[in-house]
C-alpha cells in the first residue's frame, strides 16, 4: 500500500483532488442547467406540437423509475465502501457488481427514452428544446458512462486483478463513490428541473 504524506490541511491529497474536481463539475452543470432553463422555454416547438413547451413529450413514469435505479446504485456504492472497510470482501464484490448492473440499466433506459423521443416524437437537436435537453441529459449520461468505465476497472481490481482492495486500502472506492454520488445528485436535480418544473 502506498502511504502518502498528509498535506498541510491534514487531508488526503487524492480525496482533496476529487472534491476539487467535483467543485468544478458543479459549475459545469450549473451552466448547462441555466442554458436549458432559459432556452427551452423560448422554443417555437410548442406551437408545432400544440403544447406550451417540449416538456410534455417527456415520459415521467419511465424517468422516475430511472431515478430510482440510479438511487439504488448510489446505495450499493456506499454498501461496497462499508463492506470493504469492514473486511467483508464477498459483500463488497457483490455491491460493486450490483452498482455496475444498475448503472448500465440507467444508461439503457436513457437510450430507450432517447429512441422514443427521436423516433416516435420527432424531437431532435434542431429545436432549442431538443438541443438543450439532449445536451444537458446527454452530458449527464456521459458522466454515468465514464463512471461505468471507472467501475469496470475497479471491479478488475476487486476480483484480484491489478492488486486489490482491503480493509486498510479502500481510498479508490471512496473516491469512486464521491464521483458516483455527485452524478446521482445532479440527476436528482435534473429530474425536477427538466421533467417536472
Amino acid at each position, binding site marked *: 500500500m502506498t502511504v502518502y504524506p498528509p498535506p498541510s490541511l491534514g487531508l488526503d491529497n487524492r480525496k*482533496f483532488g476529487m472534491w476539487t474536481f467535483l*467543485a468544478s463539475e458543479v459549475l459545469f452543470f450549473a451552466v448547462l442547467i*441555466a442554458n436549458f432553463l*432559459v432556452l427551452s422555454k423560448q422554443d417555437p416547438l410548442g406551437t408545432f406540437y400544440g403544447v406550451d413547451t417540449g416538456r410534455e413529450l417527456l415520459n415521467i413514469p419511465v424517468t422516475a423509475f430511472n431515478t430510482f435505479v440510479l438511487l439504488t446504485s448510489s446505495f450499493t456504492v456506499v454498501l461496497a465502501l462499508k463492506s470493504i472497510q469492514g473486511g467483508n470482501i464477498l459483500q463488497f464484490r457483490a455491491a460493486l457488481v450490483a452498482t455496475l448492473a444498475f448503472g448500465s440499466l440507467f444508461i439503457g433506459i436513457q437510450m430507450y427514452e432517447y429512441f422514443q423521443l427521436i423516433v416516435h416524437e420527432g424531437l431532435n437537436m434542431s429545436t432549442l428544446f431538443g438541443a438543450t435537453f439532449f445536451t444537458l441529459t446527454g452530458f449527464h449520461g456521459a458522466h454515468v458512462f465514464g463512471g461505468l468505465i471507472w467501475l469496470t476497472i475497479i471491479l478488475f481490481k476487486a476480483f484480484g486483478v491489478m492488486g486489490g482492495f482491503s480493509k486498510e486500502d479502500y481510498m479508490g472506492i471512496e473516491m469512486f463513490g464521491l464521483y458516483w454520488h455527485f452524478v446521482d*445528485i445532479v440527476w436528482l436535480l435534473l*429530474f425536477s428541473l427538466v421533467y417536472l418544473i
Partner: protein
Amino acid sequence: MSTHHETESKLHKHPNYFVVFIALAVLTATITTIELMSQNGIIAWPRATLNGLYLAMSITKAVLVALFYMHLKIDSYIYSILFGVPIVFALIFFALLLI
C-alpha cells in the same frame, strides 16, 4: 480542526444508509405521484406551488446524498467549503439570469 486520523476513524462509523435510501425513494415517489395527479386533473394546485415543492424536495434529496452518502456530515469541513463555494456561485449565476 479534526486531524486526518480522527476523520478517518469517524468515517468508519457509518450512518444507516438504508434509511437514507428509503427517504430518497419516498421523496422521489412523492413528487412523481403529485406531478402525475396534477397532470391527470386529480389535484389542481397552482403551478408555482408545485414547482416550489419539487425544487424543495429535490434540494432535500441532494443534501441527504451529500451529507450521508458523501460523508460531508462527518468528514472534514474543508470539503464542505470546497463543494459549497461553487454552489453559492451557481446560485448567484441563476439569480442574475432572473433579473
